[in-house]
Each structure stands twice: as C-alpha cells, then as structure tokens.
C-alpha cells in the first residue's frame, strides 16, 4: 500500500546507510587494488605524492611465490578446518545434551556460552600464560602431576594450541545456533521413531542430523568468514612465529611490519577473493530465507 510519497521518503531514509557502506567498501577496495599494481615501500621514500611505479602483476606473482605463502595457506586451512570440525562436532553433542531435561538448564547454558563474550585478547592471553605456560601454567601442573614432561604448548605444538584456543572461543556460537535449531525439531517425530524401535544412532543419523543440516551449513559459513580473519589470537600468542602465520597474518606483516604495501595489497586482493567465494554460498542461503 505504499504511496509515491512514502516511496521517496523510504529512499531518503535508506540513503545514509547505503552511501556510507558504499564508500566504506569501494574507497579502500579501489585503493588496495591500485596499490597492488604499484611498487610502494613507504620506508624507502615511495609516496603517493611522488608518484608510484607501476609494476603490473609483479606483486601478485611475488606474493604467491614467496616462501611463506604456501605455509600460510596450510596454516590457514588447518586452523579453519580444525576449529570447524571441533566446534561443530562438540557443538552438536552439547546441543543435544542441553536439549535434554535437567535441573539448572539455564545456568548450564550460560556457563557454556560465556567464552563467546570474552574479548579475543583476553582469552588468548589467559590461555597462553595461565594455561599453556610451560612452567607455571595449569596444564604444566597437570602434566607434572601425572609424571609427564610439560609441553611447550605455543612453540612445540603451536597450531594445535591455537586451534584449541580459537575452538574454545567459537564453541559457544556453534552450540547456541545448533541448540536453537534442535529445539525446533518436532519431538513427536522422534517419539514415533523410538516406538518403532529405531536405535539411538539411527534416530540421530536419520532424524536429528538431517534436521540440523541447514544450521550446520550456516555455522560453517559464518565461522569460516570470521576464522579466515582471526588476528588478535595470533598477535598476542605467537606473533606469527612457530608456523602460526595465517594468510591474514602474513598480509598484516607485509603491510604494517615490513611496510611493503604493494606486496601486501596483492595479498589482500587474494584474501578478498577467497572470502568472497565463501560469502557467495552464505548469501545464497540467507537470500533464500528472505523469500520465505
């Protein structure tokens, strides 16, 4: 029942949000694209004012052929993959558990989701020092208690340690979404299956899991986007040492630490393309939901 007048009013009301986001997206994106084709080393006197040398695709080639590129891809895949598997498997288990009748359900729920609200620098540092410190950390005490040699977590087992820290942060998110999804499961369907004598594992694989499929997809996509970009956790624990340099962290180092803006920008373009591939799938699901 929208009139012409309300339509134009609607457009005006939308304009600030649209233009701000358009600027926020396009201006830096164009600059990154521009820099990625230039030799730009601010510390060696290159500046926009003096004009930057056009180098074609040299930065793109150099970024991919540098010795840190493939290890960074591997690290990224291990962290993203590891965290996804852990949070989704444990998340499903926890969601099923929290859906059962029990006393103090609300309190348990709060305990389980609490890590999500801890700022990344705090959780990384608490884990690094108070838990993973090889001398005074809780885990070292625990290892000694059982007569084992304490592990130098963040240097000898740096990747598993990071996966553990990040999984702890993201498990609440996965659990909460899967729990929300599981609560919409029709309990009569489960009861009917139970009466028909379907054993627990069959009920899980043929009823619960298919029902959760959509939620699992959404958790996977959203977490992937956030996990591709994790920064603070690496920044305060290893600083990218001991094989923990992800693609994002490598780009950060190229741009801000070694101030090779051209090279870092080329890496940035790769990261943007990568994130967009994931994003397309997520948008499809969300878009379908909008129609419904």
């Amino acid at each position: 029942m929208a009139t012409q007048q309300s339509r134009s009013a609607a457009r005006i009301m939308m304009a600030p949000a649209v233009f701000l986001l358009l600027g926020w997206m396009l201006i830096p994106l164009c600059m990154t694209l521009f820099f990625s084709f230039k030799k730009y080393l601010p510390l060696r006197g290159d500046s926009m004012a003096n004009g930057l040398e056009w180098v074609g695709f040299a930065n793109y080639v150099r970024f991919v052929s540098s010795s840190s590129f493939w290890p960074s891809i591997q690290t990224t895949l291990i962290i993203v993959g590891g965290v996804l598997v852990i949070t989704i498997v444990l998340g499903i288990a926890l969601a099923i558990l929290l859906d059962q009748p029990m006393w103090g359900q609300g309190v348990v729920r709060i305990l389980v989701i609490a890590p999500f609200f801890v700022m990344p620098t705090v959780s990384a540092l608490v884990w690094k020092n108070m838990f993973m410190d090889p001398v005074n950390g809780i885990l070292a005490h625990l290892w000694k208690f059982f007569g084992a040699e304490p592990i130098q977590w963040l240097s000898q087992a740096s990747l598993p340690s990071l996966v553990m820290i990040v999984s702890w942060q993201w498990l609440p998110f996965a659990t909460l979404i899967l729990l929300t999804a599981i609560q919409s499961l029709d309990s009569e369907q489960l009861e009917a299956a139970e009466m028909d004598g379907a054993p627990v594992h069959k009920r899980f694989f043929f009823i619960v899991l298919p029902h959760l499929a959509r939620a699992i997809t959404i958790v996977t996509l959203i977490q992937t986007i956030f996990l591709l970009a994790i920064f603070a956790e690496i920044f305060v624990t290893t600083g990218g040492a001991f094989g923990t340099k992800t693609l994002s962290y490598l780009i950060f180092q190229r741009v801000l630490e070694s101030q090779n803006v051209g090279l870092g920008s080329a890496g940035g373009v790769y990261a943007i393309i990568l994130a967009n591939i994931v994003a397309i799938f997520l948008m499809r699901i969300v878009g379908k939901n909008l129609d419904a």
Partner: protein
Amino acid sequence: MARAVTTNRKMINTAVAWLIGLLIFFPILWTILTSFKTEAQAIADPPIFLFFDWTLENYSVVQERSDYMRFLWNSIFLAGGSTILGLIIAVPAAWSMAFVPSKRTKDILLWMLSTKMLPAVGVLYPIYLLFIQLGLLDSRIGLTIVLMLINLPIIVWMLYTYFKEIPGEILEAARMDGAGLKEELLYILTPMAIPGIASTMLLNFILAWNEAFWTLNLTAVNAAPLTAFIASYSSPEGLFFAKLSAASTMAIAPILILGWFSQKQLVRGLTFGAVK
C-alpha cells in the same frame, strides 16, 4: 505431549551437563579466582582453588600502573558511540526496507551483508593511510566511525528482522485514521520496535567492545580501548598471573553480564535472521 523421563535419567543429564558446563567455563572462573590471589599463590603448585588469602591488591596495582580507567572509558566511548551512531543511521534504513519494500530491497540487504564479509586485512593499509591523512589515527572519533561501519550491516539486518515482525495491518489502520508519517513513526512503530532496538543495541555494543583488529591497529595511546590494554600484557607483565587476571576480569566482566542478557538475540544477529 512431553516425554516422560525417569528421574534417574534426568540426574545423569544434569550431572554430565554441569560437569561439561563448568569445564568450559573454567578458564573464566580461574581467571576471576586468580585475580584475588597474591602472585605467589597464583603460580603455586599444586594450584590453590579456593583456600587462599583473598586480596584486592591486584586491582589497585593494575589501576595505578596502567591507568585502567582511561582504557575503560575508551572502550565505553567506542562501543557506545559506534552503537548509537549505527542506530541513528540504521533505524530509518531498516524501517523503510521493512515497511516500504521495493523490488531491490532484498538485493540491498544482501549487498550490505556482503560488505561485512570483506576481510579487514585486505583494506588495512588504505584505511591506515586515510586515517593518517585525515589526522584520525589514534583518535576515538575515527575508530568509532570504523566500528560503526563494520557493524552497520548487522544492525540493519537485525532491525529489519524485528521490524518485519510488526504487523503491517496496524499501520494501515493508523493510516485510515489519518495518521501521517510522523505519527506513524512516533506513536505506533517506535513503541513496538523498542524491544528489537534494545536487543540490537546490546549485541552491537558487545561486538564493538570485543573488536580486536581495528582497535589494535589504529590506536596507540589516546584512543586505545581495553582490547589493546590487555594486548600490552602480552609480555612481560603477562607473567604476573594475578595482575593479568585482575586486568582481564575488569575487561570482560561488564560484557559477560550484558552477554547473558543477549544470548537469544545473539543467534538472530549473527546468522542474519537465517536461524531464529
């Protein structure tokens, strides 16, 4: 029909769930406990759980040494400022998309969502450079704007899903009775939209408070919030466990409390309405 559950089974569920819940919560609990210990007790082997000499000394030391209050104020300013600014921009946009939808509404919403997917590190240098040019580096205003922009898509989306639930018939009835745009907004939509707006504010405040890419890269001293304050404990102060714990507890306590209120909205906000 609810399923009949034996008390026995309920007890087992309860025990297992509480055990796992406490295990997951343990790092936070341990941090809070350690913040009340002396440094010697904090690293004692075997660890002391409850029976130590409770002290508040760490809290006062942290405040004295590092001017905690300034970081706290910056966090409040950044999270609060970006949330309010974001709402001012997002409420009209979400309102118009929910109540005056056009063919392009869906595309605009999805496009807004896509800006959220842009990896921050890909645009780090341009933003850094623009901030230097505009004199915004290490300023609260600059960072507030960035935090507002990165969360704007989430704010618009959340508000949109809430506004969508307000029945359109009410608006039509009001229009029939001669209500103009102003009355419609002021007397009908605002009161109905307040719960949704409040939840959106809460979640956005939490996200902005915990944001740890731009806050670490665009601040030095003046505008640094608690995320940066804690990062400065990375070394060597971080090895003073009791003080690290006190600083951490102060940084997360406000958000833990707010977070508990927002757990339901969290799902809606972070899945863009795809899971409710």
